[in-house]
């Protein structure tokens, strides 16, 4: 038996690794997190908040294990929970550890509780961030007499380096090519970038290209583009529906940041809100535009 498998492939590990696109995703997101902790100093001088990351990962895995136990009993699904957890670590910050537990629990809980035709409706990490913001904001209402959430998205932890565009873009593309969702990313970032460039260079009459570029190379925005909006399970199945959906998210996100509406929504956070708001439309699009339902195991 051993001789046949050895002849078939030199590295069984590599073969196993290539089976599932989520393996790539886990590796890349972990690299970003480690880079953030050690090079960008996210965990503070003395790594105090590393425990917060471990907490998010722990809660996500446990919640998913419970979910799996009562549903499919297929524990390969834990990989998805790990991706969600890493996504939350990279995007969501909170003052209190309880808010992080809430984010992690609602992220996974939403997956099992809010479903339509065998697909969960909301992107789990997105759902976690939004629910943490909304619920903690409501809880804090009595203390501040206004909506003051305990969770926030911190684009300041990433900075805006052009190199980030290449690294996040390239790594994201590898994953997306395997999953077949690169179209979503490109449609989103293409539309969003065109709008930002049009506003800055044409409407406002800036002369320096670095100004729109600085906005577009923000780490949080790129992470959203290549690792959040592309989740194959929560995007429409049909290709053109998917592209239209991504364009809609880009247009609405951009609209939220326009001065005229005077909403205090930052460029980096707007897509996260918009994705949440437009998630239910996915179900609608799936109904009218038939496409093959995505499965991780093919």
């Amino acid at each position, binding site marked *: 038996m051993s001789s046949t498998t050895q002849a078939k492939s030199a590295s069984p590990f590599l073969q196993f690794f290539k089976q599932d696109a989520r393996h790539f995703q886990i590796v890349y997101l972990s690299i970003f997190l480690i880079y953030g902790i050690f090079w*960008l*100093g996210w965990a*503070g*001088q003395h790594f*105090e908040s590393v425990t917060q990351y471990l907490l998010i990962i722990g809660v996500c895995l446990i919640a998913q294990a419970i979910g799996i136990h009562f549903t499919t*009993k297929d*524990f390969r699904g834990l990989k998805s929970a790990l991706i969600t957890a890493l996504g939350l670590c990279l995007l969501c*910050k*909170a*003052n209190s550890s309880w808010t992080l537990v809430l984010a992690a629990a609602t992220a996974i809980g939403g997956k099992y509780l809010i479903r339509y035709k065998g697909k969960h409706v909301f992107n789990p990490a997105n759902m976690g961030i939004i629910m943490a913001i909304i619920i903690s904001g409501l809880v804090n209402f009595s203390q*501040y007499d*206004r909506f*003051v*959430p*305990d*969770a*926030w998205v*911190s*684009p*300041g*932890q*990433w*900075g*805006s*380096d052009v190199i980030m565009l290449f690294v996040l873009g390239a790594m994201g593309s590898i994953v997306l090519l395997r999953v077949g969702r690169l179209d979503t990313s490109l449609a989103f970032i293409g539309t969003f970038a065109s709008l930002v460039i049009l506003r*800055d260079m044409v*409407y*406002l*009459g*800036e*002369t*320096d290209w*670095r*100004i729109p570029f*600085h*906005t577009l190379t*923000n780490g949080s925005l790129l992470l959203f583009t290549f690792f959040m909006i592309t989740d194959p399970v929560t995007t429409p199945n049909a290709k053109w529906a998917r592209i239209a959906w991504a364009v809609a998210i880009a247009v609405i996100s951009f609209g939220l940041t326009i*001065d005229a509406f*005077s*909403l*205090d929504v*930052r*460029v*980096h956070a707007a897509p996260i809100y918009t994705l949440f708001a437009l998630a239910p439309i996915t179900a609608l699009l799936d109904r009218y535009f038939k496409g093959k339902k995505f499965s991780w195991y093919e």
Partner: protein
Amino acid sequence: MLNGTALSFTIQSSKITLMRQPIAFFLLSCLAFAQASAFCGFYVAKAGAQLFNKTSQVILVRQGDQTVVTMQSDYEGELKDFAMVVPVPEILRRDQIRIVESDLFDKLDHFTGPRLVEYHDEHPCYGESRFDAVVITDQSALDSVEGGLEKKAKYGVTVEAIYDVGEYTISILSATESNGLKKWLTQNGYKIPSKASKILAPYIQNGMKFFVVKVNLEKMKAADSHQLRPIQMTFRSEKFLLPIRLGMANAKADQDMIIHAFSDQGRVEPTNYRNVEIPADEEIPEYVEERFGAFYKSVFDKVWEEEGKNVVFTEYAWDLSADNFLKCDPCPSEPPAYSMLREAGVFWLLEGNDGPGANADYEGNVFLTRMHVRYNRKTFPQDLSFQVTPNKDQLQARYVIRHPVLKDDLDCKEGKEYLMSLNMQRFKALGTLEWLTGWEEPLVEEGYVEEVFECMRRNMNHSSWHEKTPEKDQNEGIPFWMYLLGAIVLWAIFQNFFASSWRWKV
């Protein structure tokens, strides 16, 4: 040559100020807090904003969509040539503009700036400790006085309002076209940097108004004043921005800016630039005390270089809420009182408890963040944008020195151990100094390491030093086999009661 508040461009060249290194020796006020004193150490020196050339300071206060901005100019030229232009989101009314006391910034800078703390080691054998004290040195000055503003409306520029506020004449302009605004300003005696109109255009397109300040020379003469006090404006805007681009229009050199930001939730952080905490809470060699200013400057230079020069540094973050007992640790000066916070624009605070047992003479939540930006046109293409976060993690740029006990009477076992550990600690502190400052030869003071050896040699003849350390008590703690037994019992319980229902299906 550009100078002045970062938000603006001020006109006229200025001499580059020589670097001042105010070093203040201060008796620690946090000794008053009984609980805190154990951790306090003594505050000995600071490295404030005056350390850096061309440093402007700004106070930002933000709650909801209400923003209060206070700017201090570091302008040092002829007063008649002083002018600054700041983009603002709306036409400000007279009651939205105030002049505040000029020592406000010094007080804040002093309170939040990088600090050096000293600890006196106790005598390892007797536990006695000694305190040193107390001199204050600090000085800041501003030049003085003359100018005027002509009221006109052409080139698409409308003078929406003119106010006399203190020593200033302030005009609020709206413009339809950047070249027009540039011409208008030039005609009215402002020397506008050649690149300014390019930068003005996007602000005009965005519907921003322009807050134009000149010195009212007659008033200054009448009041016999020579100071340009900080200007404070209050307005509502969803955007939480600090326009820095005008200030960079003609400047090639790097400019430093200190931002003191108040919120009622937690830290204020930049959203469009990376935010990094300054490395702090490290033990450094004793002799750095004399050159603490130069030390901190090197620390900042090094970390600024390493992080890519396009980063906003957080130097201080502290919860000053009325119910937070520990207002600072240690305190370089008295924690801000109600009057000072109100002066800074913290409008939501209520005057309150000043009785015994009260932590503060105000009621409400305040969180103070100090950020330090060194920017130039190349590395900071966009204006600074901020957000208030609920992040209450506290931080201070605090460095620690230890005064050792190097005496001849260390006649005890602990004395020997003390000198050994002191030796290690000094090597470590030297390493830290080199790591923090990047000083190639970390300026080792003559005999800094040797004096510990010297002290060891002097104490060698003590009998206690040659005593054999007694054998470790064998009966201490739980023996190893108990752990093992416990583990086996737990495993047995688990096997019997839970294991059957606990099976992973993978």
